């Protein structure tokens, strides 16, 4: 017999007592989600983040914070799900970590790998991950007065969560638009992909030091 209405408070449990924690982790492995449903949810997330916000940087920070816990969880989930037991250990070097993000994470979230991965020439601790058409921005047109805003800051938060979860502390991951009329980069590429976005990943100094030591150790 179920409890009468109104007496229970807080979380509702299914009648067979099976919560999300009792389910097999692989159950939703190949499940897909309605894009429209996500688009409307994302609209509400942005409207929520926009409340009492001071500026564009603040708004991006909030979106980033919303994505961060997702990244922490996705790292473990995706590693648990890998079929090969050897590849289910956490990445310990920068390059495998970035590969994991660009391939496994991107495939899981967006159904395709990221479009390019580059290392900054000026700063050895900075990496650039390119997405020609971020799925989260598919239906979003940013108004002219907010042209600096890129709502893929949410995805940047997910990346930051993955990096932090794997033990690679970052100074922050940020999303910037590099398509359309913005400056820099290849002109034809910019015209072809007006929504092209770069995710700047800036690792902390200690991470780079560790990377160097591991490199010398012949790892």
């Amino acid at each position: 017999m179920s409890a009468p209405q109104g007496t229970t408070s807080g979380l509702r449990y299914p009648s067979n007592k099976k919560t999300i924690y009792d389910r097999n982790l692989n159950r939703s492995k190949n499940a897909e989600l309605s894009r429209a449903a996500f688009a409307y949810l994302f609209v509400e997330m942005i409207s929520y983040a926009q409340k009492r916000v001071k500026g564009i940087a603040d708004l991006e920070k909030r979106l980033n914070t919303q994505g961060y816990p997702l990244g922490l969880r996705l790292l473990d989930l995706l590693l648990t799900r890998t079929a090969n037991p050897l590849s289910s250990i956490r990445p310990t070097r920068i390059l495998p970590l970035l590969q994991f993000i660009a391939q496994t994470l991107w495939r899981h979230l967006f159904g395709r790998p990221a479009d390019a991965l580059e290392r900054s020439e000026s700063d050895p601790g900075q990496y650039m991950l390119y997405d020609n058409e971020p799925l989260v921005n598919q239906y979003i047109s940013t108004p002219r007065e907010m042209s600096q805003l890129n709502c893929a800051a949410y995805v940047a938060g997910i990346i930051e969560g993955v990096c932090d979860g794997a033990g690679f502390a970052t100074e922050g991951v940020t999303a910037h638009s590099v398509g359309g009329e913005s400056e820099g980069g290849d002109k034809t590429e910019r015209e072809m992909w007006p929504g092209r976005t770069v995710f700047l990943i800036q690792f902390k100094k200690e991470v780079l030091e560790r990377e160097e030591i591991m490199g010398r150790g012949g790892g």
Partner: protein
Amino acid sequence: MVVFCLFIISKSGGLIYNREFHAGMSKLTSNDYLMLAGSFHGMHAITKQLCPVPPTPVTPLSVAGAPAPSPFIGRPSGLEVLESSHFRMQCFQTLTGIKFLLFTEPQQPNVDVMIRRIYELYADYVMKNPFYTVEMPIRCEKFDRGLDGFVKVRS
């Protein structure tokens, strides 16, 4: 095949979007456009009233538990097409009361399909845009681009 222009009128009769696809049309001030949209909105409401009352469907009492018939089925939709020797105007009203007006050449086929596709674009790039407030003028870059792509392929 020529598509002249597109108007979108909000449910309160305000012009929220207008776009010309064809060069060489007579220039109107933005105030004129607003007045045009407002007059059409009123005219549309009158044509709705002019429709004969639909016959009340005989409700079969024997079938209990059958779903109630949609309240939209017998409802008059108002002015849908206006044709002249120079242009054809098709109006499509959504269930939420937004009107899409498409001005084309009189010979243009499949206007209703086009207008539904435009409604689809509206649903995608306007309604799923977090920076758009309903009933306000539409300023969405991706909607403009989508319309451009769609109309240019057609003509």
